[in-house]
C-alpha cells in the first residue's frame, strides 16, 4: 500500500504495523503529528494499544519503562528538550535492557528557542545505552520503525530512531506501507525474556554492588556488539519480504573514489545529488551514509574508508569544546588503520539549528577538502558569519 505521507506519519504507520501495546508520549514540536496520528488510531480502534497521555516526556519514558517491564511492546516519540528531559530514564531503559522504541525528531537544543533540525539532542544521549538509527527518507522511517522493534526485542536494548525536524518530519514523500500480515510475520508479539510475573515474583533494579555492576554492564556492551549482526539479519529478512534494505552503513558510488563524503540523516540526500553531479563530471567522489551511530559501525567504516585519500565528514551537530561528533568518532575508528591506508579526515560542522545544507554547501565542502593541504586544527564551521 503506497501512500504519500510526512515522516511523522511514517513513524505512526510503523507503530501501527508493529502492534505496539503501550504508548506514552508528550507533545513537542516537531513531533506532534506522531502523537496526533497515534491518538486517532487508538481512539478509533485501529491500534489496540493503551495510550498514556502523560504530563511530561520524563513520565512518558517512565511509563514506557513500566510497560516494557510488564512485558509488552512500548513506544514513545519526542524531540530535543523532551529527549533531554528523559535523560535519566534513557539510562534506566538502557541499563534495564528494556526494548523500548522511541522516535526522536532531531531538533536543535535551546536556548535560544529553536524548533529546527540538528542532531545535538540525540547525540547528547550517546552513552545512555540506546541503539541509534538515523533515517534519510520517509520510507526508511517506516521500515526502520518496524525493524527497530524486532532488533530491540532480539538484543534487549532500546532503540532510538531519528529523523530530521521538518526535512523529514513534515515533508511528504511516498511510502510503501507494508501490509499488516507481512509485518505480523516479521514481528510477532513480544515474548519478554524477563518481565513482571505474578507467578514468579522478582525484584528488578535493586542495589548492585561493585563486585557485580561491571558484569552487568559488560553484558550490555556485548548486546550492543551483537546488535551489528542482528541488524543485518533483521534487514536480510526485511529485504526478503519487501525488497528494501539500508544497512548500518551505506556506501554510495564509492568505487575508486579518492574523496568520500560521510553524512547522516537528510543531508545524505543532498550529498547523494552532489556526488551524482560530480561523478557525472568524472570526479571520483563517493558517499558514506552512516545510519547506525550506536553501536558504532567501526569495522564497516574502517573497511569502507581504508585506502581512500580524503574523507570529509559533514556534521549537523557538534560537541562544544571538541568537534563534529561523527567526525570525532570516525577519527577514533580510523586510528588503528595502518598509516599508509589511513585517509586524511576533514571535519565540517554545518546546518545547525535548521540552517539549510544546500547542494552548494556540499559542493563547497568537496572543493575545500580537495584544496586543503592538511586538515584545519579544528573542524571547519561552514557558513558562519559573525
Amino acid at each position, binding site marked *: 500500500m503506497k501512500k504519500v505521507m510526512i515522516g511523522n506519519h511514517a513513524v505512526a504507520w510503523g507503530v501501527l504495523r508493529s502492534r505496539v501495546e503501550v504508548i506514552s508520549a508528550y507533545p513537542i514540536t516537531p513531533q506532534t503529528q506522531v502523537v496526533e496520528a497515534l491518538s486517532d488510531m487508538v481512539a478509533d480502534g485501529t491500534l489496540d494499544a493503551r495510550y498514556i497521555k502523560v504530563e511530561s516526556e520524563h513520565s512518558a519514558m517512565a511509563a514506557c519503562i513500566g510497560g516494557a517491564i510488564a512485558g509488552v511492546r512500548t513506544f514513545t516519540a519526542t524531540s530535543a528538550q523532551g529527549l533531554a528531559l528523559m535523560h535519566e530514564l534513557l539510562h534506566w531503559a538502557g541499563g534495564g535492557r528494556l526494548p523500548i522504541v522511541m522516535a526522536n525528531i532531531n531538533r536543535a537544543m535551546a536556548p535560544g528557542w529553536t524548533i529546527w533540525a540538528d542532531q545535538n539532542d540525540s547525540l547528547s544521549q550517546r552513552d545512555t545505552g540506546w541503539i541509534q538509527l538515523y533515517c534519510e527518507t520517509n520510507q526508511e522511517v517506516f521500515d526502520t520503525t518496524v525493524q527497530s522493534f524486532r532488533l530491540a526485542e532480539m538484543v534487549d536494548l532500546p532503540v532510538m530512531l531519528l529523523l530530521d525536524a521538518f526535512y523529514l518530519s513534515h515533508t511528504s514523500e511516498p511510502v510503501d506501507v507494508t501490509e499488516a500480515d507481512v509485518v505480523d510475520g516479521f514481528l510477532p508479539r513480544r515474548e519478554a525474556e524477563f518481565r513482571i510475573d505474578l507467578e514468579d515474583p522478582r525484584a528488578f533494579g535493586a542495589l548492585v554492588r561493585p563486585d557485580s555492576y561491571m558484569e*552487568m554492564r559488560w553484558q550490555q556492551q556485548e548486546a550492543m556488539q551483537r546488535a551489528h549482526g542482528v541488524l543485518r539479519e533483521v534487514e536480510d529478512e526485511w529485504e526478503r519480504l519487501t525488497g528494501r534494505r539500508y544497512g548500518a552503513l551505506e556506501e554510495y558510488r564509492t568505487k575508486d573514489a579518492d574523496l568520500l563524503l560521510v553524512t547522516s540523516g537528510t543531508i545524505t540526500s543532498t550529498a547523494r545529488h552532489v556526488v551524482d553531479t560530480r561523478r557525472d563530471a568524472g570526479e571520483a567522489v563517493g558517499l558514506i551514509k552512516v545510519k547506525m551511530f550506536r553501536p558504532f559501525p567501526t569495522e564497516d567504516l574502517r573497511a569502507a574508508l581504508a585506502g581512500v585519500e580524503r574523507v570529509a565528514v559533514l556534521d549537523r551537530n557538534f560537541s562544544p569544546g571538541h568537534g563534529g561528533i561523527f567526525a570525532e568518532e570516525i577519527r577514533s575508528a580510523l586510528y588503528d588503520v595502518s598509516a599508509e591506508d589511513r585517509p586524511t579526515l576533514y571535519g565540517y560542522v554545518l546546518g545547525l539549528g535548521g540552517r539549510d545544507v544546500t547542494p552548494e554547501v556540499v559542493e563547497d565542502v568537496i572543493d575545500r577538502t580537495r584544496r586543503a593541504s592538511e586538515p584545519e586544527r579544528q573542524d571547519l564551521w561552514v557558513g558562519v558569519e559573525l
Partner: protein
Amino acid sequence: MSDHRKDFYTPRDAGRGIPPIAISHASTLENRTGSWKYIRPRYEDRVAPCNEGCPVGIDIEGYMHLIGQGKLEEAADLLLRENPMPAITGRVCHHPCEDHCNRLSLDEPVAIHAVERRLGDMALAAPPPPRPEVSRPERVAVVGSGPAGLACAYHLSRLGYPVTVFEAASEAGGMLRQGIPEYRLPRAILDRQIERIRAAGVEIRCGARVGRDVPWSELDSYDAIFAAPGAHLGKKPRIGSGEAIPGIRPGLDFLKEVNAGGRPDVGERVVVVGGGNTAVDCARSALRLGAEVTVLYRRTPVEMPAIPQEVKEARGEGVDFVFLAAPVSASAAAGELLGVECQRMELGERDDSGRRRPVPVDEGRFSMLADTVLTAIGEDCDLSFLPEAVQTEWGMIRVGELNESTSAPVFAGGDVVDQPRSVADALGSGKRAAIGIDHFLRRRAGEELEPLVIEELRLGGAGNVSATRYRRDDPVRRESPVNEVVTWAQMNPNHFRRLSRHEDRFLSAVEIRKAFGEVNFGLSAKEALDEAERCLNCGVCNRCELCLIFCPDMAITRREDGDGFEIDLRYCKGCGLCVAECPRGAVVMTREDL
C-alpha cells in the same frame, strides 16, 4: 519458568551466574540482621497485682484469661484449685484484689468478686468434680470447720490425705454460718459449698468440740493437726460501772442467735458500738428486726475496719452512723435500758497500730435513747483446749510462715493466729497450713525434699501461696515466669479502652427491711463475662499478638501449637517495639550475651 527464561537467569558462560540486569533470585532471609542488636526481647510472664493482693492466693488473672478464651470450666477449675468456696468468697470477701487492680489507673477496678461469684455459682451448679484419690497413708485432724479449717482440709484432701474436721457446733461452717448474716450469705449457698468440700473427701464431725466432746489426746493419733477454732468470745465493753445492764449484749451473741434463726426482740432503737464487720452485721440484722439502728464508732469512717461496701450498703438501708463517739454509761429503769450517755472524741496521737488514738473532747457529752445496745468491739479466742507446748502470744497461737505452731505436728490458722480476721485470710492460712503439713509429712516419711522456698510459692513474692505452684501443675502456659508484680508503668495503656464497671444489683431498700433474704444479686452471666473482659491480664501474655503485628522484622512467629510466640533472634534487631507495645508488660528487654 519457561525454558528460554531459565536460560536467561542461569549463566550463559557458566561463570558467576550474573544476569544482564539486577533481577532477584534470593530473599533477604539470607541476611542475619539479628546480628545488629545488642539487646534482645524476651517473653516473661509476671504477676498481676490482684493476685498478689488476694489473701487466698488465687490466680485471678489466670481465670480471667481462661474466661477470655471462652474456657469457663477451665477457669472455674483454676479458681477451685486455690479456693474451696468461690461462691462464698464471691459474696462475702472484702476483695482487696480490687484495690490492687491496675484498672484503677485507667477507670475503675474489675468487679473481680462478681466474676468469682458467677464462676463459683456455676461450679456449684455443675456436677461435683471427682473425689481426689487418697494417696497418702497419713491422717490429718482439723479443729474447726470455719473457712480456715475447711480450706486446710480441702487442700489436704486434694493432696491425697484423709482428713477429719472436728466442729463444735451442730452444723459446719464456723463463722460463715454463725457470724455472717444470711442476707449476705444465703444458707443454701453455704450448705452446698460445704457439701462440695465433703464431696472432695473431707469428713466433718459436727457437735464435736475438741477439749469437751473430743479430748486432745484423741487428736494425737493423727499425723498432723490443724487448729482453727476461730474467735468466738466477744470482748466486753466498759460502759458505766461494768455491771451487767439489761439490754446491753455482745453483738456476736446477737448475731449467732439471729443467724441460727432466732428473732430476738431488740425494741425500737438499737445502738451498735464498734466499727468492724461484726458491728455492721449487727446493725443490718437489727434493722431487719424492725429497729432504728445507730452505729457508734470512736474514730472516723477512714479508720473503720468494716468492709466499706458493707458500710455503704448499711447506710443505704438506713443505718445511722455516728463517728468520733463512744458510750461511757448507760441508764436503765425498771430493768429496762433507757439509753446510753456518749462522749465525743477526736483523733490524737498515733498508737502502736499506727492508727490515731481517739481522745475525749471536753464538754462533749450527749445521750442517745436505746432499747438495745450491741457491743462489737472485737472477739477473743478460747485456746483452753490446747496443750501447753503450743505457744500463744496476745491470746493467739504463734505460727511460722506455713502456719506451723511451736509444737509439731500442730499447725494453726484462721482467727486464732495473728492475721486480719477475714474469710479470705482464713482461707489463705488454711492453704498455707495444708502445704506446710504436706511438706512436713513427706519429709517425715523420708522423702528427700528440697526446702520449700515460700517466696516462690507466694504470688508476686508477697501474696499468699499458690497450691498450683506448689503442685507445679499450672494449666496456663507461662513464658519464663518471673515472680514479680507487673507495674502500671511497665504496661502500655494505649491499647486499653475505658469501660465502666458493672456494679452489683441490690434488693431495694424497702424490701430489705422485711427479710433476711440475699440483698446482693451480683451480676448476670453476661455482665460477669463483660467484667472478665475488662481484665487487662496484667503481666501475662494473652496472645493478643500486638508484638507480632508491630514487629518490623517479622521476627516474631506464632508457636506451632498456637499457644504463644517465638522470637527469631536471627532477624530480631532489638528495636524493642514488642516490649514497648505489649499492653501488659509481658515482654522485657535483656542484654545481648556477647
